[in-house]
């Protein structure tokens, strides 16, 4: 009698250990999944916004989606939010006007530069005059890794059909200097223009520049 009870608890304990390890292994394998490729389907993700809502890429099916990796402490991000010329803000505003969904994603791990509380994220949006549809807080870095986001800023564009059509830099001059914005070709503007003209995106993939994402 004692024996069987003991065995039962032993078996339960071991089963738990097996489940734990299997879970850990599966989790670690999931991390090795390949990231997004231009021309194929944009990887699906679900994240929590600064307003506590849960949003998925699938929620925006039928609309063009822009993903912007950001970190408010990064000088390259500061360059594009500097006012004037408020480059990022005006991109966001014109996106909103064209019914394009703009998602700013913060993948900084807790304690690193750019990691912010939901309140702080909203305050940054207000104080900088930004107009993203949502700010997604991705402190685990899962979404960033899924897309292979390397830098802040790093931009992606997804078509209404869910196809990834742009992956790369925001513009053509890799620098942290505000005065270079005017001289640069903005790849996001160009890609969105191509899309709304019904043309394939001419420059679909560029080398992103900026600070490393703080995974």
């Amino acid at each position, binding site marked *: 009698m004692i024996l069987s009870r003991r065995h039962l608890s032993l078996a339960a304990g071991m089963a738990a250990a097996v489940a734990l390890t299997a879970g850990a292994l599966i989790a670690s394998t999931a991390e090795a999944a390949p990231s997004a490729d231009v021309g194929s389907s944009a990887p699906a993700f679900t994240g929590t916004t600064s307003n506590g809502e849960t949003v998925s890429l699938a929620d925006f099916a039928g609309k063009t989606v822009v993903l912007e990796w950001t970190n408010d402490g*990064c000088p390259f991000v500061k360059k594009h939010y500097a006012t004037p010329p408020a480059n990022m803000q005006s991109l966001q505003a014109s996106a909103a006007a064209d019914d394009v969904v703009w998602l700013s994603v913060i993948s900084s791990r807790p304690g690193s*530069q750019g990691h912010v509380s939901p309140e702080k994220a909203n305050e940054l949006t207000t104080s900088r005059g930004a107009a993203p549809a949502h700010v997604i807080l991705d402190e685990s870095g899962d979404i960033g890794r899924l897309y292979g986001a390397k830098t802040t800023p790093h931009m992606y564009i997804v078509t209404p059909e869910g196809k990834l059509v742009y992956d790369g830099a925001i513009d053509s001059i890799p620098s942290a200097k505000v005065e270079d914005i005017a001289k640069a070709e903005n790849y996001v503007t160009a890609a969105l223009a191509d899309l709304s003209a019904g043309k394939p995106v001419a420059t679909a993939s560029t080398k992103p520049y900026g600070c490393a994402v703080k995974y």
Partner: protein
Amino acid sequence: MTGFIRRFAVAFLGLSLMAGLAHAQMDERRAEAELISDRVSVAPGDTFYAALRMQMDDGWHIYWRNAGDAGLPPRLILKEGTSLPEDAVGEFLWPLPHLIPVVEGEIMDYGYDDEVVFAFPVTVPQDASGEIKIVAEADYLICESICIPESADVSLTLPVGAPVENAGAGAKIGEWIARVPTAFPGEARIDDATEPWRLSLRLEAGFPEDAHIRFFPFNHEISHPAAQPQRAGPDGASLSLTPDRTGSVSDTLDGVIRIDAPGAEPVGYEISAARGEIFAGTADREVQAVMPGKGLGSAADGAAPLGFERIVMLAFFALIGGLILNLMPCVLPVLSMKALGMVQAAASGRAGELKSHGLWYTGGVLISFVALAGALLLVRQATGSATLGFQLQHAPTVAILALVMFAVGLWLMGFFELGSSVQNLGGTLANRGGAAGAFFTGVLAAVVGAPCVGPFLGAALGAVIGQPAPAVIAVFLAMGFGMALPFLILSFVPGLHRLLPKPGKWMDTLKQAFAFPMFLTAAWLLSVVAGLAGAGAVGWTVAGATALVFAIWLGRQGGGLRKGVAALALAGAFVYPAMQANVPTAPVSGSSQAAFTGSYGEAAWSPETVQAMLAEGRPVFVDFTASWCASCQVNKLTTLKTRKVQEAFKDANVAFLVADFTQKDPMIAEELKLRARAGVPMYLWYPAGASEPQILPEILTQELVIGLVQG
């Protein structure tokens, strides 16, 4: 009104604070920058070297001409006041950079820390007189974990007259020009026909022994963080390069190779690799060269502690894996013996001895695992690579293991007794020999557990297998400790042993029942021997088992002569089958894969087959398996071979490829290494049109596979 004034005051205070901060930041740059030159004075028409010298604060780095995944190279921007025409000032000569792993395996930068000198040639105009002047802004991004763009005003003024060398600065500049990569004295080619690309470097003089070679591209054709597995041959070396997601080679692949040989300064060569097949004699064998010393540069400041954390995490997984090993069919019986011993000891009031025996047992397990780690490291040293389960690719080892399992089964059955230590279970602990008994139970547990180490620990061990020896040993020790832990706890936590059941006849019954899993394990190992060395070796192993029984039988008869013959028979029982298994028989290699494939997968795996299938637009599923891999067999039976899954594969026109690793296969070993796996099982899933596979969990379910296929 007062509200307005207060707000104004606050705003004003804020502004002045910000101004103050901005000012402070200007003064607190993370690097000193200055212009130096190898001349004190120059003559008209002279060409000399000037240089931007940068001294970075500890832990901060700046970037090479290609910064890698993030970052920006430094620039020198000439400003007003410069007395030279723009084309008189040449480009930077970029010294050899080092790797800056920002996020291990994900984000890699190239650059410099501590000090760097960027020399550039300056030509003095023929009509120069008085003095020449360079006024410039050094514009650079400097990063630690965060990045700060900084700029420094720098200038250089030199009188024009009789040329005079500046010995001090000249030596400094010369020292750094010597670190600028020179033209490669051999020939380089890039084969981008298949992935990974192969960069072949033909060098008549050969590369130094044990040299670690790394390619730093000028552009972004390749994935910067990816490892660059290295091969070598009599005529040079080659590197496997993982292309960037959108990378392609236009005409040539240009960049720098950095060669780090132990005990030597790193050497850099600039290469421009033309497209073409790799040179013969540059990829004959794998090289597991380790970047020596400070090769990884700032890794010492930033990434190394992270690496340590990772190893601690892996050790933790290994510990849990070790715990689970206790449940393996081949280990459980041995452990149950130990447990029964404890039951008896606790019941007869000798609980005090439990502690020392717990420690002896742990020692036995740990020493065996260190020995296993040592063997793994030796294999790695000798062959350049090692995968888990390597012990089961060596036929003599498997034959001996089969006999050990058989012997343990006989012992459990009560067919013989191992001296006094196991005379009766209770007696074990009472004897002086109890400590040794406990120790060898530990060794035995580890030995019989060895075939089972693979499946659960694949991920943890895969990540650690390429690491330096101490990390490998640490993870194996953690695994051993995990295995010994349950008994250690039972031995040390006071009162816990009182929960043990009372001894009785059930112990004998249980002990005998446990013999059957051992016999079955032996049977399974025999089938592995058959796959490795053919039916002949199996015959000899069975003969060995008979000799074993004969030796035991003789030993029980007593008498000096009989004992002697018994000992001889016993030795022969193990040695002879092992020798036979080692005799190379008719080529079994290939035949087993073919047979296996015929009944199971669609075709044998090779990178070319995968590419061909993908080119046809078919999705591809690859099963990396081996007949000695227990969890591979489980997955095969419960998932892959089932009708549902096979039908789903058929419906989706999936190309199902099998890579059989029962025998050593360098191509499979390389693929496992590329995917950072220590051994089989590994399952790769390429959706139609994908170039990179998804690595599936090591434990498959029908739902998972069908979900993917129908995905």
